[in-house]
């Protein structure tokens, strides 16, 4: 009774003043909770594929992982054992060609875009082209390299693959390097101009050292992307069952193996041995790609 009495006046006030209590049964509130639940569910569902891919790579790819796969050549269908040593070398060689072509060009173009004429018409169009190139289907990079290099040289080769990969790496290198150079504080540049630097001197002595981590981040991301590409290699590098360097000579102007094409070829094979190797090669490829991604991240975090 006492308790009821003491509560009584408050209840009366509550009737007059609007209730500020949270009501869980009100429509707005229910929708709110429901939508939050859906968002959580969606986030978790979206994470399932990654976990499944990683699980597959580790379980199916992991158990064949041994020194053998790094040193042996790919097996024919009915053979046991074997590896993909030549494909690892091939991936490094083709990506190397791509990097050698795309990095200097992309780097210099980025200097033009960020420092020399950032607001000019050329820069505007070049930037737009670079952004459009980021969306270039990778298969078309292969078609282009086929038309320009393979048909001209008459052979599938690592340089042809390099041209195709360079085309895909270029926009990443240009756009990240430009962004990094733009982050260099303008007061630092003003100081360099004020002391009597020519434009190139400002760029070489001040802008580049300061922007270097960012530039390297872009390079690493581009390499990571290129290492995983398959489509541009299909008819530029083709595939090879032999080593790139044999008996002391490098077979530059000949078809060359790569991890990604090996995975593609073996994935559709009816032989258990080759399918297992495809999984192991995937694991190695993903590790390589992640390594470059992590490098990119570490470099990007370094602040001057």
């Amino acid at each position, binding site marked *: 009774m006492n308790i009821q009495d003491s509560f009584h006046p408050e209840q009366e006030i509550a009737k007059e003043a609007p209730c500020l209590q949270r009501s869980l049964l009100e429509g707005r509130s229910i929708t709110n909770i429901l939508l939050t639940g859906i968002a959580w569910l969606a986030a978790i569902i979206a994470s399932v594929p990654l976990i499944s891919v990683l699980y597959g790579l580790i379980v199916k790819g992991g158990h064949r992982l041994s020194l053998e796969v790094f040193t042996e050549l790919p097996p024919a269908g009915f053979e046991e054992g074997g590896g993909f040593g030549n494909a690892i070398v091939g991936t490094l060689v083709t990506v190397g060609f791509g990097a050698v072509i795309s990095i200097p060009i992309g780097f*210099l173009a980025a200097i033009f875009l960020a420092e020399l004429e950032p607001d000019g018409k050329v820069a505007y169009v070049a930037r737009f082209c670079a952004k459009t190139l980021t969306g270039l289907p990778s298969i078309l990079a292969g078609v282009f390299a086929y038309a320009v290099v393979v048909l001209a040289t008459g052979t599938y080769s690592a340089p042809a693959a390099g041209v195709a990969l360079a085309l895909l790496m270029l926009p990443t290198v240009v756009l990240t390097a430009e962004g990094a150079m733009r982050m260099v504080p303008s007061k630092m540049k003003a100081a360099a101009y004020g002391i009597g630097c020519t434009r190139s001197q400002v760029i070489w002595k001040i802008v580049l050292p300061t922007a270097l981590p960012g530039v390297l981040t872009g390079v690493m991301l581009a390499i990571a992307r290129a290492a995983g590409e398959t489509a541009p290699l299909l008819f530029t590098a083709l595939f090879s069952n032999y080593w790139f360097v044999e008996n002391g000579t490098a077979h530059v102007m000949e078809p060359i193996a790569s991890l990604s094409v090996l995975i593609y070829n073996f994935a559709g094979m009816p032989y258990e041995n080759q399918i297992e190797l495809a999984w192991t090669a995937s694991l190695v490829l993903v590790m390589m790609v992640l390594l470059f991604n992590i490098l990119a991240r570490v470099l990007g975090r370094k602040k001057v």
Partner: protein
Amino acid sequence: MNAFEQTVAGEQISGPPSQTDYLLDRSFRGLATVCAWLILIVVGLILWKIGAKAVPAISEYQLGFLTGTTWDVNKQVYGILPEIWGTLYSSILALIIGGFFGITMAIFLTQDFLPPRIALVFRTIIELLAAIPSVVYGLWGIYVVIPFVRPIADWLNAEFGWIPFFSTTLSGPGMLPAALVLSIMILPTIAAVSQDALRMVPYRIKEAAYGLGANRWEVILKVMLSTASTGIFGSLVLGFGRALGETMALAMLIGNSNQLSLSLFSPGNTLAALLALNFPEAGQHEIPVLMYAALVLLLITFVVNMAGTAIMTMTSKQLKAGR
């Protein structure tokens, strides 16, 4: 200029840059300019080279190529309507699925749902999804996704076979597994670009909505999404562009059969997969035809990507002006 040195009396440390300095300056700037032009030239060259190689096929098959439905090397009859259909159909399906999850992820990560550490976990997951090579997704699709969706697809076909989408059984590769894997591949693009768009919404706008007594989802759905809508739309267009050009996962999962079908479970083909499969073994006569198909793909993706880029540029300009 020489007089500059004379006028300053006594020994001077300061001096004009040497001739070498000037030479280096000039040549370095020249080189950088050439490289910037090179980007324009490369884009032009892509169009020109592929276009020129396609000319024989264009003059022979003309626009009938786009509406033909057979691809027969022996009879030299070529048509890419099934491929165009397959490209668009798989991309649209992927866009619906990937778009939903991508945008939800973007909201989830930007609107303070999560403590920073867990948000970092999800952000890393999305970035890892983007890092995995397409051929690995293809392999995973063959050995994990197809066996997983097959019983579901066959059950749907048995129970709801009268719905056109479920009108065939899934014999292995097909549209649904391809579109599912494709949606996973474009999710990171959509999530990343949408996140940027949502982050660019000025805080004061959000504050104003909360100030009017809106709850969290009302703020998100009615204010945040509409303010960031152009950017989110841009993310969808870019994701769509990516889906149109994606090759390997589709070549491995879609079945590569020249069919025009609404069914989610029937095999199909896409332009990119057509190129990937036929190019390595193409004969003298087939190459121009494939170049024609490449040109069609190039034009479709260029238009979509340019639209996406233009939308993104517009959004960032708008937001800069609004601040």
